[in-house]
């Protein structure tokens, strides 16, 4: 049994997170489910820039200025940094409610609804909140078992509620939400600049070279130019358009989701309660506000067994969890003390929700399955000590 060799297999929280995200580098990287288009984006950017550095830059550095390739390199590095930051970070995922919290909310809802006659549909679960003299409706998420905060939305691709949900972008392979919106915007902005830059200098290069050796010879000497111009031409329209659209959204402090749904478009005369009524203030809030931390704690260690003597990394985790003696053991095999005292209205919906979270499969996990290991080490530790 290979499990005997693993005496200190540590289960990190990302392995047990519900939702359909992919995790890499032991929880440091978090992406959406489908990554094919993201690889295409990477390929297009890296490929086009490589062609530019290989074909155009040597000529331009000599005939015009060496600053041209230097600036191109800086721009390229910035674009890649922003792309990776957008794709690999937590967009602002809201963790699902643990069973006790879900029960508490259910009881509150039932108390608010009063008695529903048999046969009648229960009223929709909506909370009204007044923000800045506007009534905003908070909807209940049946998957995450929470009332969604304002501006949050549930992404069906990633199966998570995301705070300040903008949209799910297949090009970056991740949701765009509160935490990574500014990186996404800077990515589109810098990519527009890079595309325009490469396109412009391609033209300049072709013109300069054609003057010397003729157009056809130029194309023969630098065949990459044709490809670059094609890619840049099509990219230009879409990326510049997207940057312009997001600049418009930022100046109004709106999300793509709200824009598409027409939440503040005046049909109901409800104005955007989050806008500061000043373009500069809105831009500052969206782009320069403090960087919000991730509330997921992907790399925290899960306490596998409460009673057995814990190894050093679990004791480090216990300083995180010291305020909660009955920690997130909903996913391990330890008996759940709070559940024995939970009010008897354990709804089947909530029970099945817990079931779902324990068995959610992950696509790109390390080969060793973690669910049996979460149980096995507890057993192995007992016998080896």
């Amino acid at each position: 049994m290979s499990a005997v060799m693993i005496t200190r297999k540590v289960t990190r929280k990302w392995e047990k997170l519900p939702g359909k995200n992919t995790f890499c580098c032991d929880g440091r990287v978090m992406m959406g489910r489908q990554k094919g288009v993201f690889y295409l984006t990477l390929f297009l950017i890296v490929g086009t820039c490589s062609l530019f550095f290989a074909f155009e830059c040597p000529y331009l550095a000599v005939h015009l200025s060496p600053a041209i390739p230097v600036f191109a390199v800086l721009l390229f590095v910035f674009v890649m940094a922003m792309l990776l930051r957008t794709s690999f970070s937590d967009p602002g995922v809201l963790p699902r409610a643990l069973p006790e919290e879900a029960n508490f909310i259910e009881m509150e809802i039932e108390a608010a609804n009063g008695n529903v006659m048999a046969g009648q549909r229960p009223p929709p679960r909506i909370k009204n909140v007044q923000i800045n003299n506007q009534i905003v409706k908070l909807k209940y998420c049946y998957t995450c078992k929470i009332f969604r905060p304002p501006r949050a939305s549930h992404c069906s691709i990633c199966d998570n509620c995301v705070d300040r949900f903008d949209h799910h972008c297949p090009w970056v392979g991740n949701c765009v939400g509160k935490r990574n919106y500014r990186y996404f915007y800077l990515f589109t902005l810098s990519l527009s600049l890079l595309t325009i830059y490469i396109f412009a200098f391609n033209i300049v290069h072709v013109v300069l070279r054609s003057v010397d050796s003729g157009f056809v010879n130029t194309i023969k000497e630098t065949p990459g130019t044709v490809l670059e111009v094609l890619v840049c031409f099509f990219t230009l329209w879409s990326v510049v358009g997207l940057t312009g659209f997001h600049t418009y959204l930022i100046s109004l402090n709106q999300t793509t989701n709200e824009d598409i749904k027409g939440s503040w478009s005046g049909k109901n005369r409800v104005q955007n309660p989050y806008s500061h009524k000043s373009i500069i203030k809105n831009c500052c809030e969206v782009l320069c506000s403090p960087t919000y931390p991730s509330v997921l704690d992907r790399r925290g260690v899960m306490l596998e067994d409460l009673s057995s003597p814990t190894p050093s990394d679990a004791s480090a985790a216990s300083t995180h969890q010291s305020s909660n003696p009955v920690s997130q053991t909903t996913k391990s095999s330890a008996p759940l003390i709070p559940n024995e005292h939970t009010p008897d209205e354990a709804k089947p919906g909530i029970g099945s929700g817990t079931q779902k979270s324990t068995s959610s499969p992950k696509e790109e996990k390390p080969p060793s399955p973690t669910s049996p290991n979460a149980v096995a080490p507890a057993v192995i530790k007992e016998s080896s000590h």
Partner: protein
Amino acid sequence: MAETHSLQDLRQAAVASKVFVQRDYSSGTICKFQTKFPAELESRIDKQQFEETVQTLNNLYAEAEKLGGRSYLEGCLACLTAYTIFLCMETHYEKVLKKIAKYIQEQNEKIYAPLGLLLTDPIERGLRVVEIIIFEDRSIGSR
């Protein structure tokens, strides 16, 4: 009598119930919790004390999310370095979160644990709720 309920003792105590203090969205999307006193805590703790704790937490979160010269400076500096500066530096928000964790630990030790209550740091619940665990008061024998 207060010594029967230290933080260590509470680990062995049985949980009677949990109360969840929800977010207050009246000021927008900033992190703020309702100061409304939950009915379940009436027999355990002073209303004023509870409100003071929540209000201090709200003030700390407001400090973390404040839009001002400092946050703009941090944002611009980070942007210029393509956000690589955050690999070595802690963000302002993270610094305040540490302050909050210390404050909650302190409140638990001094005020809540002796009364058989325990506050959970909201960051562990996704900044959605302040979870208060109410323990059974077995030693004193009063409920």
